[in-house]
């Protein structure tokens, strides 16, 4: 069965490529997914955020057909996963949480193996092309066991791209990587998006979701509790804040009394924060008031909420 998944917004066709409806899954008596629904637009990056054990991997395995759900429907490019699992498998690749590369084989052999299993005409050529693309040519004939964490993940991603799948599922792709390797992998994911791929990733790194995702789904207690763009998600944590630091406690107290009409918070003896419902206008107003009262802040800084704040807020009740 195929579902219709084409929507038109403002003259642009937006195609839903992954559709998940009311998924439920329990292991023995433990309910992992209560009622999960989400949709992913073609050519975008969707990040599924959630704390450890929130069910991210379980959901990913259900979408890719590796695990059967107890109830609900998943479809990829309008193919019903329950009825057309094999047709679906041509469209995507899946990379598990740990780098699923074969340590005993070389990088080249790993790629050739996947190319053979994808029944590609010239496996060796495909392997060499991907080794070049992922800057692994020098290590092509070394066993994967000798690769660094970053190289293993790059090889893992290269293996996911054998056969040029339309959708790439990545389960916590940068877990355990050093910052440089993480940046390299983020660049690779951005390139994939530029090439028109749809990427569905799970992550615990909020910065990763912020930098890469077009849309974020937040999974908690077996349900998607919030969904939206990174900017929309950050707004959930409240408005921007102005942080004012003074040289003395007296100056801080004077400032607080002049700004009593604002939503203030005292951080310490010399620092105040003010919530900004309208960032630019409110900052100008506050600085004008302080200038009129001849109080000169030692420093000031406008801070925006981060996904960390959202994460903390959303996991508070968990």
């Amino acid at each position: 069965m195929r579902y219709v998944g084409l929507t038109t917004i403002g003259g642009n066709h937006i195609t839903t490529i992954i559709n998940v409806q009311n998924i439920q899954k329990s292991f023995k008596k433990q309910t992992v997914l209560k009622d999960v629904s989400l949709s992913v637009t073609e050519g975008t990056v969707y990040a599924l955020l959630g704390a450890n054990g929130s069910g991210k991997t379980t959901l990913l395995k259900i979408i890719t057909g590796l695990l059967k759900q107890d109830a609900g429907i998943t479809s990829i490019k309008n193919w019903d996963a329950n009825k057309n699992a094999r047709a679906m498998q041509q469209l995507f690749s899946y990379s598990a949480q740990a780098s699923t590369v074969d340590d005993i084989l070389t990088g080249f052999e790993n790629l050739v193996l996947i190319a053979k299993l994808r029944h590609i005409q010239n496996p060796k050529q495909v392997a060499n092309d991907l080794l070049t693309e992922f800057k692994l040519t020098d290590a092509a004939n070394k066993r994967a066991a000798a690769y660094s964490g970053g190289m293993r993940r790059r090889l893992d991603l290269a293996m996911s791209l054998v056969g040029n799948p339309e959708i790439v599922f990545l389960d916590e792709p940068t877990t355990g990587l050093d910052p440089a390797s993480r940046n390299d992998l983020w660049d690779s994911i951005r390139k994939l998006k530029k090439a028109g791929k749809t990427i569905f990733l799970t992550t615990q790194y909020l910065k990763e979701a912020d930098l890469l995702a077009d849309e974020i789904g937040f999974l908690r207690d077996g349900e998607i509790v919030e969904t939206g763009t990174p900017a929309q998600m950050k707004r959930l944590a409240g408005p921007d804040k102005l942080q004012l630091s003074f040289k003395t406690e007296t100056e801080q107290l004077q400032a607080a009394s002049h700004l009593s009409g604002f939503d203030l918070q005292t951080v310490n003896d010399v620092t105040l924060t003010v919530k900004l419902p309208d960032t630019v206008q409110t900052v100008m107003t506050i600085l004008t008031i302080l200038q009129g009262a001849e109080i000169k802040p030692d420093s000031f800084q406008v801070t925006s909420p981060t996904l960390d704040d959202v994460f903390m807020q959303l996991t508070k009740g968990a």
Partner: protein
Amino acid sequence: MTYLSDTFALAGRLIKHNLRSVDTIITVVLMPIMMLLLMVYLFGSAMKIEGFSHADYVNYVLPGILLMTIATGSAYTALRIFTDKTSGMFDRFKSLLISKSAVMNGQAVASVIFLMISTLIVPAVGFLVGFRSDATLGEWALVILLLFGAALAITWITAPFALMMSSIDGASAFSYIILLFLFISSAFVPAAGMPKLIRGFAENQPMTHIIQAVRSLMNSQPIGDHGWIAAAWIIGITIVFAFLSSWMAKRV
């Protein structure tokens, strides 16, 4: 055709694993050779077996050592299956558009090929320490067929345990049960001399029938009922455990 190419691509990967693992080669090839030398030179002179002189003990014990090679090697089959299950390789393969049974069949093909290679090295060493055979080419062909069947059956019987266990030690420990079957059989001494209760088990368990059939064929003697009973055990175990393994592999 794609089913076969998938199976052989996956088997090729595991054969590389075996050939690149010094530990596997030492355990699977050298240990049975050491056991053969130990049996022949240390215990051989003390063994009194009807129909075999002291010097011929190597002819008696060699089939048991061949089965021991297969049993020892099965620990590595379990290890490879368990590692693929826990490392995410199974998931990677299962997410591809390949025949789902190719994943386990690849394991079986690789295991049998490796076990047969290591098994065939043992008679060569046996020949150096006095093993002689009057067997015809046809009898040798039947010996190879029986050993192939034993390797296949032991591989499949190992697979469900490797899939079921939650630790690597548990997965490979199953080979000790197979080795136990080997020791409580006619592999090293005739079952006739065993205590009554043990003898009843030893005379009727599959290892004894396979070993007796191989021994009779190698020594160009009539195999009696051992041949068809051994074949029935091998076919039965292979069918039951191959289905069980494939069923379980789809669920892990």
